[in-house]
C-alpha cells in the first residue's frame, strides 16, 4: 500500500513538472543513447573486421620476421627469394605460397598522381588471399620470372589516376618507372579506417629492382587443412631460423590476428563506452540536482505527510522512486534513440553498427543505478526533514 502510494506520488510529481522532468531526462537520454550507439559502432566495426580477416582466405599462415605483438617495432627483414624457395620446399606446393615486399610510392599517369602502396608479389597472390579482379588479368609466372613492368591497380588507385579513362593498357609511373596496367582489382572497401583498395601489385622481381633490394617483407602460406596449420607454421619458422640464426620469425594464423585485432577493438569500444558513460554520469548529476529542487519545493508536503504518519523511509522511498523513474524512463528513451541512430548510421554511412542485447541491458541497468545513486542523497534529505520545520516552510 505504502509502495503503491510512493509510485503514484512519484509519477504524479513527474507529470506535474513535465518540462522539467523532460529536460532532466534529456541528460540521461543523451548518455544512454551515446553508450548504445558507440557500443554498437564498436561492435559493428569488430564484426566487420573479423569478416574481412576471415575473408582473406581460410587457413592462412603469415610468416614474418620479428615477434607479432601489439606495439612491437617492425624488424628489417633478412628474407630473400631464396628463402621463399626454401619455404616452398617445406610446404611442398609453390601455389600455396605468396610473398610481399611493399613500399609507399607515388603513382603518376596523365598528369594525375596518387600516393599509394606498391606491393611486389608472386602470381600466386589471388589464390592464397581471396582477391578477385574487376577488369583485365592478374600477374603471371612469366611476368614474375622476367621482372616485367606490369601492374594491377587497386580500385581507389584506378579511380584516382584514370577517373574518365579505361586504365587497361595505360602507362603508370611508379616511383618514376613506367609500368603497364594489365588489371584492376574488384573493390574491397575499408577496414579500421584503412582503404584496402589503395594499392598496386607488381611482380616481386620488378619491385625489388625498382627499390634496389633483394628483400622480402613477409610470406603467406595457405595451409592445406586447419589441423596441420600450426605444425606447418612451426616447420617453416624452424627452416627460416636455421637459415637466419640472428633473426626471430613468427608464424601467425587468422585466429591469432583476430585475437589481437579483437583486443584492440575491445579496448577501443571500452574507451568509447567510457566517454559516453561520462555523459550518463553528468545526466545523473542533473537528476540529483533536480531531485534536491523537488524536495525543497515539496517541503511542506513532506511535513504534512510526516504529520499524518509517514515514516522517514516512506518519504525517502517516494523520492528515490521519483529519481529512478526519471532515469529509467530516460534510459528506455535513450535506448530507443541509440538503437534508432545506430540503425541509421549502419544503413546510411560506411560506419558499421551492430546492436547487442547486452549493451541495452547494461544501459538500462546503469540508468536505474544512476537513479538510485543520485537519488539517494535527496531522498535521505527528504526523509530526515524535521516535520515542524517542514510545515513552517513557505
Amino acid at each position, binding site marked *: 500500500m505504502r509502495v503503491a502510494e510512493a509510485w503514484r506520488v512519484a509519477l504524479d510529481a513527474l507529470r506535474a513538472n513535465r518540462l522539467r522532468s523532460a529536460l532532466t531526462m534529456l541528460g540521461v537520454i543523451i548518455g544512454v543513447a551515446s553508450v548504445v550507439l558507440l557500443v554498437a559502432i564498436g561492435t559493428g566495426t569488430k564484426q566487420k573486421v573479423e569478416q574481412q580477416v576471415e575473408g582473406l582466405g581460410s587457413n592462412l599462415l603469415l610468416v614474418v620476421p620479428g615477434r607479432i605483438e601489439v606495439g612491437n617495432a617492425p624488424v628489417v627483414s633478412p628474407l630473400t627469394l631464396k628463402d621463399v624457395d626454401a619455404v616452398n620446399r617445406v610446404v611442398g606446393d609453390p601455389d600455396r605460397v605468396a610473398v610481399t615486399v611493399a613500399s609507399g610510392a607515388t603513382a603518376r599517369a596523365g598528369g594525375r598522381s596518387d600516393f599509394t602502396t606498391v606491393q611486389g608479389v608472386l602470381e600466386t597472390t589471388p589464390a592464397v588471399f581471396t582477391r578477385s579482379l574487376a577488369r583485365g588479368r592478374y600477374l603471371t609466372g612469366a611476368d614474375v620470372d622476367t621482372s616485367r613492368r606490369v601492374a594491377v591497380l587497386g580500385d581507389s588507385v584506378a579511380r584516382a589516376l584514370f577517373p574518365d579513362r579505361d586504365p587497361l593498357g595505360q602507362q603508370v609511373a611508379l616511383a618514376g618507372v613506367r609500368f603497364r596496367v594489365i588489371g584492376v582489382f574488384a573493390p574491397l572497401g575499408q577496414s579500421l579506417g584503412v582503404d584496402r583498395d589503395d594499392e598496386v601489385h607488381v611482380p616481386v622481381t620488378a619491385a625489388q629492382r625498382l627499390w634496389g633490394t633483394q628483400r622480402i617483407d613477409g610470406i603467406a602460406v595457405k595451409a592445406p587443412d586447419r589441423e596441420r596449420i600450426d605444425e606447418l607454421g612451426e616447420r617453416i619458422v624452424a627452416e627460416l631460423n636455421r637459415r637466419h640464426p640472428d633473426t626471430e620469425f613468427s608464424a601467425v594464423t587468422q585466429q591469432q590476428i583476430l585475437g589481437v585485432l579483437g583486443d584492440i577493438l575491445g579496448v577501443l569500444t571500452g574507451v568509447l563506452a567510457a566517454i559516453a558513460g561520462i555523459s550518463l554520469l553528468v545526466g545523473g548529476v542533473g537528476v540529483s540536482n533536480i531531485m534536491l529542487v523537488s524536495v525543497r519545493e515539496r517541503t511542506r508536503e513532506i511535513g504534512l505527510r510526516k504529520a499524518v504518519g509517514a*515514516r522517514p523511509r516512506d518519504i525517502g522511498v517516494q523520492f528515490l522512486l521519483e529519481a529512478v523513474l526519471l532515469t529509467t524512463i530516460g534510459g528506455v528513451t535513450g535506448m530507443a534513440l541509440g538503437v534508432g541512430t545506430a540503425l541509421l548510421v549502419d544503413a546510411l554511412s560506411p560506419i558499421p553498427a551492430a546492436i547487442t542485447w547486452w549493451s541495452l541491458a547494461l544501459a538500462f541497468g546503469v540508468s536505474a543505478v544512476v537513479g538510485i545513486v543520485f537519488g539517494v542523497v535527496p531522498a535521505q534529505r527528504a526523509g530526515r526533514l*524535521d*516535520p*515542524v520545520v517542514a*510545515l513552517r516552510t513557505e
Partner: protein
Amino acid sequence: MTEPAASGPHGGERAPAIEAVDVSRTYQLDGVSVAALRGVSLTVRPGDYVALVGPSGSGKSTLMHLLGGLDRPTGGRLVIGGRDVNALAPPEMATLRNETIGFVFQAFHLLPRTSAVENVALPLVYRGVSARQRRERAAAMLGRVGLGHRLDHRPNQMSGGEQQRVAIARALVTEPTVLLADEPTGNLDSVTGAAVLELLEQLNEESGVALVMVTHDQEVAARAHRRITMRDGVVVADSARPPGADTDPHSAHDRPPSVDHGRPATLVPAPSAEPRSASGSGPGHPSGGSGGAAGATGRLPREAERPQADPREARDAAVGERAAERPGGTT
C-alpha cells in the same frame, strides 16, 4: 503514569491521552538558546475540550507540536498514548502520530492537485489500508463534515472553509484520541470560522475525541471546557470554566456544567508533588512558582465537584439530548 489526584478515588477515569510532565523545549538559534517552553506540565484526557490561549510567542504552537509528537521536548517527560516519546525512534513516532493524533493547521496544508477524498485518505495510506477501504472511510468522513458532495474537488476548487473541513476530516479519519488544532479558524472569515469551530465542537462531542485548540479569540476560548493560558513558555492559568459563567445559550444547552467539571483539568507542578500540598515551593523547579499557584486555584472547585459524573456518561447524555432535540437528527 496516571496521577493519583485524577484517577485515584474515581475508578471511572480513563488513562490520559497525553501527559506532559515538566516539559521544556529550547531552540538553538545561531548558538543562542531560546527557551520556547520552560517546564510545562499538563494532562489531556479522552474527550477533553481545551482552549490554549496566550500572547504571540508564548509557546502555544511549540507545545502543540510536542503534544502531537511532531517534535521532542528538550527536557521533561512526555507520554502520548501511553508511550514515552523520549524512548521512541522517528519511525515509531510517525506511527504514534498516525494512530493517536489528528492535526488541524491554520494553513490547512492540503496536498494540491489531489482530490478531497484522497487528501482525507492520506493518513490511511501510511496505515496500510486498502485503496477501496480508504476511499470508503474518507468519503464517509467527508460526509460527516458536510462535504459529501465535494469528494472529487481539489483544494483550489474549494473555499477556505471547505478546505479546513477537508483538513478536519483528514485529521479524524484515523479515529485519533486527540485532535490538535492550531488556530484552525485563523485563515477564515468570522462566519466561516464560527461554522468550522462548531463542527470541531460537534465532533469532539459526538466522537469523544479530545480537542486541544489554540485560539486568540477570547469568546471562542470561553466556550471550551477548559482554558489554559500561557505566557513566556509557561502555563500561567489552567481553569475549567466556572459554572454559570456561560453566556452562549446554545452551548449552555449542549453542555451541562457537570460535563465541564467532570473533565480533569490537571496542572501538575512537579511529577511527584502531593496534589494539595504547597506544590509550587518544591525545589528545583524554576517555573513551578507561577504554574503551581495557578494550578492550585484551578484544582480546588473541580476536586469538590468531581463525584457528580463520569465524563463518559455525561457526554453520552449530552449527545442523547442533542439528538432528541433535533427533529431531523439521527440517533
